[in-house]
């Protein structure tokens, strides 16, 4: 047996600096609470924001293509982008804790500590190409997220957290099984060496079945986390139970982390050209987009509608993974970058209009009727909300149109090799036409219907400066997209291309 040779140079701690910053931030918050409890939440909010701010700085200052932590951390373009999206999404989320109404979860320092731990976990997922470390990151992030959801402390929030926890555990089991199979076949948990070994041995007899099996287990695990249909059952209930900003957050950050893992993992399968995995991903994506759009049509609550809409967006993005082109992979990140602002903006609008108790509907906080005639009560929020909806629907010139255009273009480009992709592109395009109906439904309620009764203050119930700031930033990003798409896309393409995808 060879002696184990530990070389501290291999630690290369600098590669972990963005994660360590969030970890330290979380510990600092816990220590402060230990020494002097009962401090105001504004302190923790600002501390958390500063932490994320420094983490973004640390992330941006990292050079690409270095390894650390005994070669288990890989800082390449994809991990930089993934971490950037995770941190930026978190940065947008934190100010939403400063609401007018008191929601008690935000008064606990633990909330912010857990929040930073969660980011830490997701950053690990994005930055590692070691199957075990990804698993650790996934569990750290997810467990913290379940707790954060439950801290909203309503009956539905508990239900949501338990549901998410159960389904998350199932997904973790699938992930572990997939990882085990891959390890059994290749004897390695490092994705890069897995790729190399599979490449060498793919023509051996009996190789194909375990490779496909491992891939399918991974698809199920990732399907649960990014909520592809039929693994989506938890999503609408979880979103409904969680607070609006938490739901918006869940529709982006955990999914981005999982998307990075999917890109790394399925990148291997795409290079091996395993047709069945490709086909499964494309079919899942089509089913997800179409069925989620159908389900969204019949929802009565705006938050549930947005939940299904985010499922359908995830399906739309998923196609790009099967294309195995730089443009496809880049458009995933572009799409999520744009989706983050628009979707969080929309959820923040719901948050602004949140009352302490349901006053419009027995069950739902945000039924469509709540927004009826909003243009007469509050014209500017109504216009902004309409812009978010139109952007989600993919109406130009708003931001998501460009994301949609890039993904469609990537799908069409892939048609050169396999003309079935033209049909996929058409299905995806027509799905947008279905989707526009439920987005317009909200616009119709806001603009074309009269207010149900005289509730002038309805849309401002939870208004606060920080919320308006987030909405303003999101709206600005959504409207002016045309001017920054080019630098943004070339930034993303460079990073993704440099990572070899």
């Amino acid at each position, binding site marked *: 047996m060879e002696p184990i040779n530990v070389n501290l140079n291999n630690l290369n701690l600098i590669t972990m600096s963005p994660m360590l910053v969030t970890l330290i931030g979380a510990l600092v918050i816990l220590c402060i609470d230990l020494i002097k409890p009962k401090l105001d939440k504004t302190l923790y909010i600002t501390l958390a924001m500063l932490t994320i701010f420094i983490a973004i700085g640390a992330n941006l200052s990292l050079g690409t293509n270095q390894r650390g932590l005994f070669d288990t951390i890989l800082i390449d373009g994809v991990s930089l982008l993934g971490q950037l999206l995770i941190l930026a999404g978190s940065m947008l989320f934190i100010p939403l804790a400063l609401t007018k109404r008191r929601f008690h979860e935000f008064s606990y320092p633990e909330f912010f500590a857990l929040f930073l731990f969660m980011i830490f976990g997701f950053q690990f997922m994005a930055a590692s190409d070691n199957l075990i470390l990804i698993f650790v990151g996934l569990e750290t992030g997810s467990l913290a997220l379940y707790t954060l959801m439950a801290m909203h402390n309503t009956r539905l929030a508990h239900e949501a957290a338990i549901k998410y926890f159960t389904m998350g555990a199932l997904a973790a089991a699938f992930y572990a099984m997939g990882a085990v199979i891959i390890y059994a076949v290749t004897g390695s948990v490092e994705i890069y060496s897995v790729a190399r070994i599979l490449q060498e041995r793919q023509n051996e007899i009996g190789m194909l079945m375990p490779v496909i099996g491992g891939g399918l287990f991974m698809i199920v695990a990732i399907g649960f986390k990014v909520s592809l249909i039929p693994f989506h059952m938890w999503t609408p209930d979880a979103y409904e139970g969680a607070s609006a900003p938490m739901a918006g957050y869940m529709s982006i950050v955990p999914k981005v982390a999982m998307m990075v893992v999917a890109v790394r993992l399925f990148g291997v399968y795409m290079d091996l050209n395993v047709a069945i995995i490709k086909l499964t991903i494309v079919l899942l994506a089509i089913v997800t987009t179409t069925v989620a759009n159908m389900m969204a049509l019949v929802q009565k609550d705006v938050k549930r509608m947005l939940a299904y809409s985010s499922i359908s967006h995830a399906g739309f993005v998923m196609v790009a993974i099967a294309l195995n082109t730089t443009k496809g992979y880049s458009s995933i990140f572009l799409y999520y970058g744009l989706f983050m602002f628009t979707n969080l903006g929309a959820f923040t609008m719901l948050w602004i209009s949140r009352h302490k108790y349901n006053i419009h509907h027995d069950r739902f906080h945000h039924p469509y009727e709540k927004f009826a005639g909003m243009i007469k009560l509050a014209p500017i929020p109504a216009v902004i909300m309409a812009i978010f909806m139109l952007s989600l629907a993919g109406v130009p010139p708003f931001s998501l149109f460009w994301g949609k255009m890039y993904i469609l273009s990537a799908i069409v480009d892939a048609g050169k090799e396999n003309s079935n992709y033209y049909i996929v592109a058409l299905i995806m395009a027509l799905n947008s036409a279905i989707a*526009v109906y439920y987005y*317009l439904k909200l616009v119709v309620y806001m603009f074309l219907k009269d207010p149900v009764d005289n509730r002038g203050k309805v849309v401002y119930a939870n208004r606060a400066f920080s919320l308006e700031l987030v909405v303003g930033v999101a709206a600005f990003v959504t409207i002016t997209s045309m001017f920054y798409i*080019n630098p943004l896309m070339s930034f993303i393409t460079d990073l993704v291309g440099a990572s070899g995808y």
Partner: protein
Amino acid sequence: MSNILTLLIFFPLIAAIFGFFVNKNSIRVYGIAVSAAEFLLSLWLWKSYDSAQAGFQFVEKMPLIPDFGISYYLGVDGISLFIVIMATLMTMIGIIALSVKDGLKNLIITLLFLEVAMVGVFVSLDVILFYVFWEFSLVPMLYIIGAWGGSKRVYAAIKFFIYTFAGSLVMLVGILYLAYLYYTTTGVWSFSLTDWYALLLPMTVQKYLFWAFFLGFAIKVPMFPFHTWLPYAHGQAPTVGSVILAAVLLKMGSYGFVRFSLPLFPDASVAYITPVAVIAIIMIIYTAMVAYAQKDMKQVIAYSSISHMGVIIIGTFAMNAEGISGSIFQMLSHGIVSGALFMLVGVIYDRRHTKLMSEFGGLAKVMPTYATIFVIMTMASVGLPLTIGFIGEYLSLAGFFKVSPLMTVIAGTSIIVGAVYMLSLVKKSFFGPVTNPENEKLKDLDSKELWALIPLVAIVVWLGIYPKPVLGPINNSTKALVQLMHNKAQTPEAKKIILVSKKAKEAK
């Protein structure tokens, strides 16, 4: 003024944003002033336009997303110039004639946003830019129909939106595919129309792309069987909505055929002359019959719109300079005439709150000025010589005669059927005794309505007698277009059908 087109697009946009700060009691004057200024700007564009030249003028090009070949690329030629002027004119006239009381401020601001999109569609030479304006135009129209429309307004507005949106998404896939073909051929991305014009596509590809674009445009025109959204939209839209919808928004579809389908896919266009012409003829005759069966005045004009759009499509697919010039002229004439007719129906609706023909009769005695203008517009709509309606219809059909005399004769019956339903509308509403006592005390046109309608009457007569100032530049640009199509055509039948007139050849 080299950047007058940018000014034309962004002036209404800025004016619309400023409009939020104008007090709602003064908003009408603001709206009229802004739209008049925009109209004058477009007239200035005409004045500085060099009619002798056929190509794009006032070209502006600025990279927007250079890595993907998308640029801010504008230009105007004889084909688009007059449609732009008509768009600004009809917006101005629509605002002058507004009789809406509730939410007037929102309506005027929305109309200004719509004007941005309309002008943008017709002056964009970058396909993505075109697509952006094309899609964006749906949003203000959705609001106009949905907020100020009749009882089923929400249904009508959403139907309009989703129908058009679905069609244009298919077109978007086509656009992206064409861009990819351009990329594989030349190695660079470009969405510039003039770059795409240089692309020679194999016939198999042209066929698919032709139908992808066709779907987007045909729904907008609207061509049979995609026309069902239009009667709803017109039936429910407020007067100004119908005016703009009929005058300008429908023209986006027929303009798209001329600007995109024909020059990009000349062979496929020629190959599909027969199916498209059959659809157009069905649309002409079937909707004319439906128009005759209507009880509601506005529905008669809505269906007559579809019928006239059929003639425009026939002219476009004649593939020669006469037919295409005629169809473009017919777009203008249909815009002005149907716009005026919708406005006239709006006038009577404001007074009586009904549009049913059975409620009226003998209006000519009570409202003589109104009846006179209505009859003039009816004559123009029917296509009486010396009115604007005649020239376009005649040229379109004359152009198509070279392609297929038989189909032209069938399509020509549209003039007769058109006369039947329009004259019966006039007869039922204006002549005979005043049967309904409620009609006896109706006021004739007031000054606001006269200000809106008299310019249109003047244009109808002026261009009916002397179309040359408009037809000349149109003809120049169409000849260049036909020449381009002729040069690009690969199949022998396309070479044969796309006729280049002798003069244009000599000029080259």
